[in-house]
């Protein structure tokens, strides 16, 4: 080699960019000039000059390749791609087991991903379909009263119209009253119980993009006592008749004329009303502090919500001050000085489903947390499937090494080999995609049932979904295929063809760490599932403070009106009925409770105002439900003075700070006027019972004595439930034409945890799938190892090794990654589940044995998977394995 050379990098650069047919002369000329320059100016200048001149050759003429002269088949020409696919296909056929493992794993991963994608897209699409969704907000109440946060989904009745009149940025206001959502709806002689009834302003159908099938958007809800039905309800009541112009009776509100039919509200809406009456049918309380109605506003285009928010304090001052004085006896500034606050907030309508958890929501909303959790699970399962592909490809590299060597000798570039391996992974991915779509198609009904959704397969094949799915499959193929492609294509042909190639030794540690990742995810999922199930079991079996077995609830007993007494005494006559009670609230169900302002001193406006839950019960309540009395006595019907007696729960005693609760007096504030204030005497204290779900700590509770027929509970004692139910229905039907609806307290109680139960089930399924995919990979790896060590096993057996020792030898390798995974997964899973449990006021402790059990399970599953292959290998007759060459 000559000592004085031009810079190597410049030479390489030229090599790379210059068209091959020009390269020789260009290099020659530059080199000649370089030699002259070196002679004249010395080496450094010559080198610099050379580099500069190379760079000046970056011109179109030097870059342009000559067509046809030297035909090189570049990596992505159609002919090459066809060839890649042929070779890939043949390779798949040659290794049917591994191809099956790869495709199954990826198909399961993709199918899970697709289903979770459906769920996530649905959750994210809530209320986005409204034409004005980007400018729609819900107006809410945000405040603080005596240390208690006030976050309510509705706002004052006059607030909406005031906003529309006084503030130019507001285009429209629509109010929806859904506070009395359940009605007995009657047409002629038929009546049904309807649970999704609302009353709305006449511009409801202009604001929300819910199409009307009959009637015009602006007209349908303008008159009092007019109603629109959704399609299914209209069919239920009117069959194929035209409902418009006909009438239905809405509970006690009287006759309504049907003016239109709207399309069923899409599932991705934060409310699902079936029947919407005109708001003018209702008498609304026109007060700011003691009324509530869902209020939606539409802003004018390009008007920022912050401009409106800035005006809210002024609005509160203007309208609320005088009412506050009346209701609470304090001025607004005093009220605020005591650390209280009251204002209106605005939520973008598209945020309601996932971000809003206020009191009095139209429906239970979704939770962003679960969107995240399930997305992460989807990514994990897919990742696991990709890892399988990588591991199996690199483990099988010994077989492919010779092929790579020969291809390289025959002139393949590394780029071409990469293309070949990538097309193999693409082929596998797309085959998996086809199978995954089939799997989704089959599993969707089951998934819908479990997740409580109604997704259709066609949602996957609509609009932007197809390109999205294809593109992500392409990415997955690249991800899964890139490492094997680079790994396999980098083999040195000389060593490979000489046979000096070490079988996959180089990538062994990587394979093991990838297996570790797989088992980390699997163990994490197992731990999660165990803890979710334990918590579910805990809340379903925790002592709730009342006896929830053998209690039958009869719904809508308020429809009995003055026949309640007769109904009850009929029931008491039955031998199977132990006791009957009615009350404003029964555990785990809809309630007629209210929140009352309570003071502990007579009429003193400076005294602390408590805001506590309360409802009316009769004297049989605590006996029927089996609630224990801690102190004092129950209400006595013989005591006329008990009309002004109350029972408290222990939490309320604590809140009020009573040392001797029985005999203490409290004052209910009423609506604020002096004559609505009433004095009550505490006669007894009930042991705390879970009247709400375990998410909430038991709240202070005040029970007044009085008839509230909202619901009825019957304690029964019978083995022949169907007969009893029939008898009850006959008695009911003798009193009223309304439908007889009932439920069992224990079932209702369990229904409260439906969403947790769903999460538990889904978690379990996903954990199962994760482990399945991970085990597929492990199974494949074990098969490879056994194959590779066939001869070794033969020799060992000939020398006297037992089958058991060979199995141990082959399985030992796979235990290490699982153990490492356990160590890493434990703290991560502990942290995650600890966060999840924070949602419950009553929760289990995360115990160590959960982790031990998860680890043991994982190890057992891994061993089972591996031992199948190791035992198979160990049992082979050594004569056979040693004969193979």
């Amino acid at each position: 080699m000559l000592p004085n050379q031009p810079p190597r990098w410049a030479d390489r650069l030229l090599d790379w960019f210059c068209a091959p047919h020009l390269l020789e002369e260009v290099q020659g000329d530059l080199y000649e000039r370089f030699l002259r320059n070196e002679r004249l100016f010395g080496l450094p200048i010559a080198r610099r000059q050379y580099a500069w001149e190379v760079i000046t050759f970056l011109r179109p003429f030097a870059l342009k390749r000559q067509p046809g002269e030297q035909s090189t088949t570049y990596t992505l020409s159609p002919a090459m791609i066809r060839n890649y696919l042929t070779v890939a296909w043949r390779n798949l056929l040659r290794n049917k087991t591994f191809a099956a493992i790869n495709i199954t794993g990826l198909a399961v991963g993709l199918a899970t991903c697709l289903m979770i994608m459906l769920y996530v897209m649905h959750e994210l699409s809530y209320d986005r379909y409204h034409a004005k969704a980007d400018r729609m907000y819900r107006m809410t109440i945000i405040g603080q009263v005596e240390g208690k946060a006030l976050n309510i989904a509705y706002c004052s009745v006059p607030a909406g119209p005031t906003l529309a009149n006084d503030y130019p940025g507001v285009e429209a206001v629509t109010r929806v009253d859904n506070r009395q959502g359940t009605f007995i709806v009657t047409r002629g002689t038929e009546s049904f119980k309807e649970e999704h009834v609302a009353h709305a302003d006449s511009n409801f159908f202009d604001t929300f993009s819910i199409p009307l099938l009959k009637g015009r958007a602006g007209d349908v809800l303008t008159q009092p006592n007019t109603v629109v039905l959704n399609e299914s309800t209209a069919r239920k009541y009117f069959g194929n008749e035209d409902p418009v112009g006909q009438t239905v009776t809405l509970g006690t509100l009287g006759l309504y004329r049907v003016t239109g039919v709207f399309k069923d509200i899409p599932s991705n809406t934060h409310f699902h009303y079936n029947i919407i009456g005109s708001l003018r049918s209702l008498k609304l309380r026109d007060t700011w502090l003691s009324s509530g109605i869902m209020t939606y506003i539409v802003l004018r285009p390009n008007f920022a919500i912050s401009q409106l928010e800035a005006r809210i304090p002024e609005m509160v001052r203007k309208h609320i001050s005088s009412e506050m004085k009346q209701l609470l006896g304090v001025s607004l500034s005093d009220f605020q000085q005591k650390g209280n606050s009251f204002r209106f907030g605005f939520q973008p309508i598209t945020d309601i489903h996932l971000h809003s958890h206020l009191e009095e929501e139209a429906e239970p909303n979704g939770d962003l947390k679960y969107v995240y959790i399930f997305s992460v699970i989807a990514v994990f399962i897919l990742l696991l499937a990709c890892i399988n592909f990588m591991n199996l490809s690199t483990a099988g590299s010994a077989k492919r090494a010779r092929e790579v060597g020969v291809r390289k000798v025959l002139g393949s570039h590394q780029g071409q080999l990469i293309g070949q391996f990538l097309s193999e992974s693409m082929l596998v991915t797309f085959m998996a995609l086809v199978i995954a779509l089939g799997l989704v198609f089959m599993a969707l009904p089951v998934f819908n049932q479990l997740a409580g959704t109604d997704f259709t397969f066609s949602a996957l094949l609509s609009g932007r979904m197809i390109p999205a799915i294809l593109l992500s499959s392409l990415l997955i193929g690249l991800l899964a295929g890139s490492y094997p492609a680079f790994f396999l294509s980098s083999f040195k042909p000389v060593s490979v063809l000489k046979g000096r190639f070490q079988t996959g030794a180089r990538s062994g540690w990587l394979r093991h760490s990838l297996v570790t990742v797989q088992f980390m995810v699997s163990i994490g999922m197992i731990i999660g599932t165990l803890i979710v199930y334990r918590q579910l079991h805990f809340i379903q079996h925790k002592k709730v403070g009342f006896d929830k077995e053998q209690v039958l609830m009869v719904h809508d007993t308020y429809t009995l009106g003055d026949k309640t007494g007769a109904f009850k005494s009929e029931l008491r006559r039955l031998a199977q009925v132990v006791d009957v009670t009615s009350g404003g609230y029964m555990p785990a169900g809809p309630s007629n409770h209210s929140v009352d302002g309570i003071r502990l001193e007579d009429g003193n406006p400076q005294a602390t105002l408590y805001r506590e839950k309360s409802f009316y019960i009769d004297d049989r309540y605590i006996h029927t439900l089996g609630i224990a009395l801690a102190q004092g006595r129950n209400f006595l019907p013989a005591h006329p003075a008990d009309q002004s007696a109350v029972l408290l729960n222990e939490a309320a005693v604590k809140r009020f700070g009573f040392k001797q609760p029985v005999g203490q007096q409290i004052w209910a504030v009423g609506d604020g006027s002096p004559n609505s204030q009433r004095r009550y005497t505490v006669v007894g204290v009930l042991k705390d019972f879970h009247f709400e779900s375990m998410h909430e700590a038991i709240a202070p509770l005040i029970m007044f004595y009085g008839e509230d027929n909202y619901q009825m509970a019957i304690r029964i004692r019978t083995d022949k439930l169907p007969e009893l139910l029939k008898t009850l229905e006959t008695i009911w039907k003798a009193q009223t034409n309304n439908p007889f609806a009932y439920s069992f307290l224990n079932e209702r109680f369990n229904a409260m945890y439906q969403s947790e139960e769903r999460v538990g089930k889904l978690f379990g399924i996903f954990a199962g799938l994760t482990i399945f995919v991970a085990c597929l990979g492990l199974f494949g790896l074990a098969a490879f190892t056994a194959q590779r060590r066939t001869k070794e096993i033969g020799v060992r057996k000939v020398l006297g090794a037992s089958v058991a020792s060979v199995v141990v030898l082959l399985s030992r390798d796979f235990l290490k990654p699982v153990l490492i995974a356990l160590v890493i997964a434990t703290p991560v899973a502990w942290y995650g589940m600890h966060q999840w449990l924070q949602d419950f006021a009553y929760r289990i402790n995360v115990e160590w044995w959960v982790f031990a059990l998860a680890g043991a399970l994982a190890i057992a599953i891994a061993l089972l998977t591996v031992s199948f292959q190791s035992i198979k290998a160990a049992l082979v007759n050594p004569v056979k394995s040693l004969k193979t060459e």
Partner: protein
Amino acid sequence: MKRSYLGEFEELVLLTVATLGQGAYGVAIADELDQQAGRPVSISAVHAALHRLEEKGMLTSHMGDATAERGGRRKRLFSVTALGSRTLHDIRDMRNRLWDAIAPNTLPAIG
């Protein structure tokens, strides 16, 4: 007459190829231009011009023999084609006609 347009630099390169006869290749042309026109030219510029002239059909080329001084690489040797020669002549004729058309003593004297 169809006129072939040549840029000023292309014309110089074409003329230089004619001047150098058998030995016309990249570096030689660049050196000659450097000497005759007194301006330094980069080899890439010369190559680009040669390439264009060949595309226009005014030059033809063949690979010469390998020489040691270029690291064993061959030279591409250029020669002027009939079209090239015709174009050069046309340009020269046109210039001559223009020179002839200048009335005596119209140009300011130099020197």
